[in-house]
């Protein structure tokens, strides 16, 4: 009424026109074909599970950006540090924490869009995983996290959707529980945006539950089990510097969200070498030991599936297992999701018996998923039910005498192998 831009009739006509457009849009939607059933699977991951990350190209101006945005002296010191890590590796003396640090520094040098956040990052956090990142790349690319685990995963999500490649370190994966909402959101991103938004986030955390770790219930929860069901999330574990380095590199280059679990009690104690510059596949299990042909023929071979602290437990139990006259195919489940059922089946075709040494709980644990999959896909290969050695459903106690009985270890494995070979249920 107060201005002369349009008359009453014009406004009514406009309203009619708008209504007609809306109606047409609704009809178009109603009459459009349904999406194909295959689309859900196609949108699960932006990068197929069997992607080889070794020849991933990086943007053409990557090196130019890095040179322009980093201080030459800082870069030089970083290169020195990398060289010293490689020396350690060559001597078989690099730790898991250092191996991941090496992978991160290499990837951050390679791709200037890679960023990293962790609590106490500038002080190296707990295991030196982010060591020298801030000193080399500055406080924007490598920042101390403000304390809010859930929401700094959410923040990384935002970064990831806007062209960056964020790495988030969780000092202890138990605190990742705060971030379940954000992690779910991360897993859903690619599919729910119809594949329009990639979200290349990598979460690296020390977790699992070592036998006798004496950290109490709230530092012993199996976060790796809790996240198994999150769609779109690739889940890996590594119990050696070699696996940690190779998988971290791949996961950082992968264009979807991934989480890498490392063994909290072995970050500085387990030493080894890395395969320099090699990105390992994210969908393959690692066979660490093959049962002798003799033991297979004698029906004294058992497939043992394990991960994180369970790997060392199994390796140390091997001598006793052999002394018993038995042997194992020791398979490390470095890819929890997607699970490498082919490697498992190939082993079962030899042994026909399987034990899962699982540092998650009876209810809802990793072993439960693996066991079910084996029964479904490899039933004909099984001479006995899948045997699971897993944590009880009670909160993991702190007192060593109590914890001993909850978290299954090498001694339990030895007994289980004996029972399996003796066909005792």
């Amino acid at each position, binding site marked *: 009424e107060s201005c002369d831009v349009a008359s009453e009739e014009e406004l009514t006509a406009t309203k009619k026109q708008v209504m007609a457009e809306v109606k047409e849009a609704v009809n178009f939607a109603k009459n459009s074909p349904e999406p194909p059933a295959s689309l859900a699977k196609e949108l699960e991951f932006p990068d197929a599970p069997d992607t080889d990350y070794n020849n991933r190209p990086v943007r053409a101006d990557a090196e130019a950006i890095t040179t322009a945005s980093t201080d030459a002296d800082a870069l030089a010191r970083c290169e020195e540090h990398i060289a010293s890590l490689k020396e350690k590796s060559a001597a078989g003396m690099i730790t898991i924490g250092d191996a991941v640090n090496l992978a991160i520094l290499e990837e951050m040098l390679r791709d200037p869009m890679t960023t990293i956040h962790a609590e106490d990052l500038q*002080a190296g956090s707990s295991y030196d995983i982010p060591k020298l990142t801030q000193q080399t790349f500055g406080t924007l690319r490598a920042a101390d996290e*403000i*304390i809010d685990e859930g929401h700094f995963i959410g923040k990384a999500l935002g970064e990831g959707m806007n062209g960056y490649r964020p790495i988030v370190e969780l000092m202890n994966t138990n605190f990742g529980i*705060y971030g379940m909402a954000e992690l779910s959101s991360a897993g859903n991103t690619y599919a729910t945006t119809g594949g329009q938004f990639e979200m290349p986030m990598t979460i690296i955390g020390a977790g699992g539950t070592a036998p006798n770790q004496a950290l109490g219930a709230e530092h012993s929860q199996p976060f790796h089990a809790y996240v198994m069901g999150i769609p779109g999330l690739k889940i890996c574990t590594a119990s050696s510097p070699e696996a940690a380095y190779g998988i971290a590199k791949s996961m950082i280059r992968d264009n979807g969200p991934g989480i890498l679990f490392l063994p909290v009690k072995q970050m500085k104690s387990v030493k080894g070498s890395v395969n320099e510059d090699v990105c390992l596949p994210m969908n393959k299990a690692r066979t660490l030991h093959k049962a002798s042909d003799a033991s297979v023929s004698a029906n004294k071979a058992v497939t043992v599936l394990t991960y994180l602290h369970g790997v060392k437990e199994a390796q140390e139990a091997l001598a006793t297992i052999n002394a018993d006259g038995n042997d194992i195919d020791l398979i490390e489940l470095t890819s929890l999701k997607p699970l490498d059922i082919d490697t498992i089946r190939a082993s079962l075709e030899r042994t026909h018996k399987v034990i899962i040494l699982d540092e998650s709980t009876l209810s809802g644990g990793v072993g439960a998923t693996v066991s079910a999959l084996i029964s479904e896909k490899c039933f004909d290969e099984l001479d006995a039910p899948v045997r699971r050695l897993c944590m009880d459903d009670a909160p993991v106690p702190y007192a060593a005498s109590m914890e001993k*009985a909850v978290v299954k270890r090498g001694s339990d494995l030895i007994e289980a192998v004996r029972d399996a070979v003796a066909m005792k249920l």
Partner: protein
Amino acid sequence: SSVRWSSSTATGFTVSVTDELYDDTPLPTKGDGGVTPFLGVKPGDTSPTIDSCMVSPNAHPTWKLFRLLDEDGNLVEGAQMPPSVSEEQWVRMYKAMVSQQEMDTIFYGSQRQGRVSFYMTATGEEAIHIGSAAALAPNDPVYAQYREAGVIMWRGFTKQQFADQCFSNERDLGKGRQMPIHVGSSEHHFHTISSPLSTQIPQAVGAAYALKQEGRDNVAMCFFGEGAASEGDFHAALNFAGTLEVPIVFFCRNNGYAISTPTHEQYRGDGIASRSVGYGMHAIRVDGNDMAAVYAATKAARELALAESCPVLIEAMTYRVGHHSTSDDSSRYRSIDEIKKWKEDVDPIARFRNYLERERLWSQEEDAQLRSDERLEVLKALEQAETAAKPPLEEMFTDVYDVKLPHLEEQEASMLAHIAKYPDKY
């Protein structure tokens, strides 16, 4: 249904609000002095220029620091010691600070010796613990973070009980389930410490809500550090407390560091106190190393919270003299000089001792004797805790549920059978 309010726009759309959607609050209408009903704007409170509407955080005055004693323990000008506290009480509070410090020193040392797996000290923050605890009623429920041992100590938790918890022996109230320093005692109205940060804050609000419903003369007391105040739980909890108007005192120990992260990398606002405005509550900033001031501030906050059934936020400025925990080496990220300066210039215990000595309520000889007595007591408690038996294995499966469920009974039976089979391993 009758239409209570409708407006017709020039486009012919009609927005109607019917009876069903509203309660009996009378709706304002256009034209009554320019009031816009849903934007909460009062007449005359609008402006057409950005400059007068855009407010900088610096426009708000920063919180004054409340203190009664200067760094040497002299009463500052105009200060008055809280009259409700007797001289004997002040001495008792001083002794409690010393007791806590001695306990920390020895337990920390025992971790270094490999006798205990983990420990966290509260060195430099003793005045906060004792000052605040003494101002509470003994049955005010306390929710703490992990650096508040002095609070439960004031309430009567003994050195032996602390030691038993650290060693997870059969006397541990937590039945060997939690790491050291994760103490808790229903008798002392102190909720068991939980590792994940800030989970205690919304829980404390729930406790305050229960108190409000019961109409009791108690407040909920909730401690946390300035780093923990970054967690989402802090913000949700304070908003709830302000909106639900519950009797709670939020006590923030701003000790300068969250492990290695200093405060200027944790937040940008005026400390934690300034957040009170957003959540609708009173706040006071206090010198956390001045025990008398901490006492007075806590007392005032508690009285206000009870009188008005409202939350009150206390921010105590202090310094974490020790490492974050036995898993931390703070020389990685701060200078020894910085630590030394705080330890020597603003030590809360020395400060209050100076006050007591000046008032002739305490002497150097008594101090030496006290320290020696305390040390002995802690050492004895340690020895007793170390040699005591561990909790029985059955306790692993109790308290998961009220009554043990079949699957747990099975697992327990299987475990016991396994242990019976290999007795020498367990």
